């Protein structure tokens, strides 16, 4: 009994409820004629698509910069890379790599500036991050109209200028990473091996990084800034590095997302993309100032599982699409829970 209790305390009620809910959905699925294999495959694909963006939360949380609601900044860098890669008509794995190579320097630049900004507003990072994300997305809306891209598969046909809202990467680098060593089992089950390998590689690199000197210093800055300062760690520098890292991972993450999804979504597309990533890592057990790679993996599976399963299962039961509402309530409820809990722990 005691062990169960301590497990519940460690995992937290919301997380357990969400896990049970997901389990319930999988149990019910066969009875309402939803294919379990197709659902699992969908969940896995979506896990791979979103994993890197969730991973992008880790460095900033660890360095004490809070949840990165400013993820759209990294996403914009990724979009710039993706769009440029399509403009250069690069295809296959080369196209994706080119997109990343272009995106990463931009993301470093964005992240550096963003990090400098966040160092000046310690304590108010999350709200500012949100609005920096929002306003940069809005600013890029203007830029997407004006930037001199020419590729006919990307610009509006009649005007000849201004990028389209959604750009298909079909014929360029659709599933270039996903299809590496991927396999199909039966009609419904598809396993994107390449995407998983890539995600695992990034997770491993992050794990390694967290164990380097810089990585541990960063964690110290997050968990105990006064101690870090006393032991001679440059707090602001560590924070900036974490923000840059987070932004770069956001950029890489969106490219992984796009190559699997098949489309580049511009304009208001990245506007709300930070929220599912934030919710996922929190569901995985992270708090506002502590996150591990395990949190990322668990959280992304749980969250994407729910997003995949609710539309199909709930729809079959009640004959109405409630997935939107479930998603809003679960993701924001989780963020809310994390925001209110952290203070309690502190004051104890």
């Amino acid at each position, binding site marked *: 009994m005691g062990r169960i209790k301590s497990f519940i305390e460690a995992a937290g009620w919301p997380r357990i409820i969400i896990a049970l809910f997901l389990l319930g959905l999988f149990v019910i699925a066969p009875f309402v004629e939803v294919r379990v294999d197709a659902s699992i495959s969908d969940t896995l694909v979506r896990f791979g698509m979103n994993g890197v963006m969730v991973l992008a939360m880790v460095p900033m949380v660890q360095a004490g910069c809070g949840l990165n609601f400013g993820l759209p900044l990294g996403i914009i860098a990724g979009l710039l890379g993706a769009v440029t890669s399509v403009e250069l008509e690069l295809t296959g794995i080369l196209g994706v790599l080119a997109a990343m190579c272009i995106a990463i320097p931009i993301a470093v630049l964005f992240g550096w500036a963003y990090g400098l900004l966040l160092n000046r507003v310690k304590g*108010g990072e*999350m709200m500012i991050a949100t*609005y920096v994300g929002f306003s940069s997305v809005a600013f890029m809306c203007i830029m997407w*109209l004006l930037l001199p891209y020419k590729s006919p598969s990307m610009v509006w046909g009649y005007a000849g200028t201004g990028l389209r809202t959604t750009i298909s990467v079909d014929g360029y680098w659709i599933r270039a990473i996903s299809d590496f060593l991927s396999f199909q089992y039966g009609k419904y089950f598809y396993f994107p091996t390449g995407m998983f390998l890539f995600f695992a590689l990034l997770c491993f690199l992050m794990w390694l990084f967290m164990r380097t000197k810089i990585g541990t210093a960063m964690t110290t800055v997050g968990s105990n800034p006064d101690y870090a300062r006393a032991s001679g760690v440059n707090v602001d520098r560590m924070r900036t590095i974490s923000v840059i890292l987070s932004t770069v991972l956001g950029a890489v993450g969106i490219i992984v997302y796009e190559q699997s999804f098949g489309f580049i979504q511009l304009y208001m597309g990245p506007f709300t993309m930070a929220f599912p990533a934030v919710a996922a890592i929190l569901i995985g057990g992270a708090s506002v100032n502590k996150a591990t790679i395990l949190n990322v993996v668990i959280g992304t599976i749980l969250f994407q599982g729910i997003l995949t399963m609710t539309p199909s299962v709930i729809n079959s039961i009640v004959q109405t699409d*409630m997935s939107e509402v479930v998603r*809003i*309530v679960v993701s*924001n409820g989780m963020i809310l829970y994390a*925001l209110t809990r952290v203070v309690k722990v502190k004051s104890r």
Partner: protein
Amino acid sequence: MKYSLREQISHFLVQYAVPIIFVLLSIVAIPLSRFSTEYLVQEMVARLARDSFLVLSLLIPIMAGMGLNFGMVLGAMAGEIGLIFITDWNVMGVQGMLLAMIISTPLAILLGWMCGAILNKAKGREMVTSFILGFFMNGVYQLVVLYGFGNIIPIKNPALVLSRGFGIRNVTNLAGIRHCLDDLFSFNIMGITIPAATFLLIGAFCLFITWFSRTKLGQDMRAVGQDQDVAGSTGIPVERTRIISIVISTVLACYGQIIFLQNIGTMNTYNSHEQAGMFAIASLLVGGASVSRATIPNVFLGVILFHLMFVVSPMAGKYLIGEAQLGEFFRVFISYGVIAIALVLYSWRRHKERERARRSLRGAE
């Protein structure tokens, strides 16, 4: 302490950076948009009547040191639920509006109390928490209005309900109460219609805020806003005071939304409230308010400047670059950018103060 003229000027420039930028932008954009002065004045008068109340509802939590109350969308939701009911019952005119207010008041109080209680658990991050709470409650609102109405809560009027038999349509027509307050008594000055009743209400509300800030409760709120620990040690019930400030703000936001929608005449059932919060906060900040200090003149200046930009920018974009879309994106950028800048300026100042405090503490050791 005396300041030199230069210091005073630089202080003024920093304090009013956002409004100054807006005035300059407007000076450039108004001639570009080719709108007539008369049109713009009429538009601004209408928008002042429509939006001021919503913006005013933000003042009290700022007084209590809780920052911008992004949770005001909860109040707006309560107001919308009241409006759905009176539309279903077909109660019209001012009576309908008053009835909607009465119905939604208990709901707004409940939501405000909940919001306040949650924010008490998230001291120091009130804004981001109330912001997320708004999104969360939006989900709950959808659950109730899209699935509960016409199902558990009976709705008779088929014009309101989706064709599937339950859930309210995306657009609710408020023809019954359209302009009911604005037209109660309005008059013309030089071809410009002035909805006097609405302005009277807004004026009364301004008086209320001024009066309120002088009451015991208002003074307590200021004290809590200055320093919670000090306020607590002088016997002010800090948590309770904070909850009350949020409740008042939520109820007022609810009335504000009803006034706003009686002017618009149609309601976007599922996102009117989101926009209400966003516009109100941006307007207040454009008027020169900060996260910790906002006055009534800030409200009116802000509404005028923000909406001037809002009306003018698409046309200015169209004539300048030949693309109305550009102006539209520009105003979106401005709306979010303003909030970002204001938040940054505020946090920056607070951060600096804290650094200074820490340094002086160390010096004293």
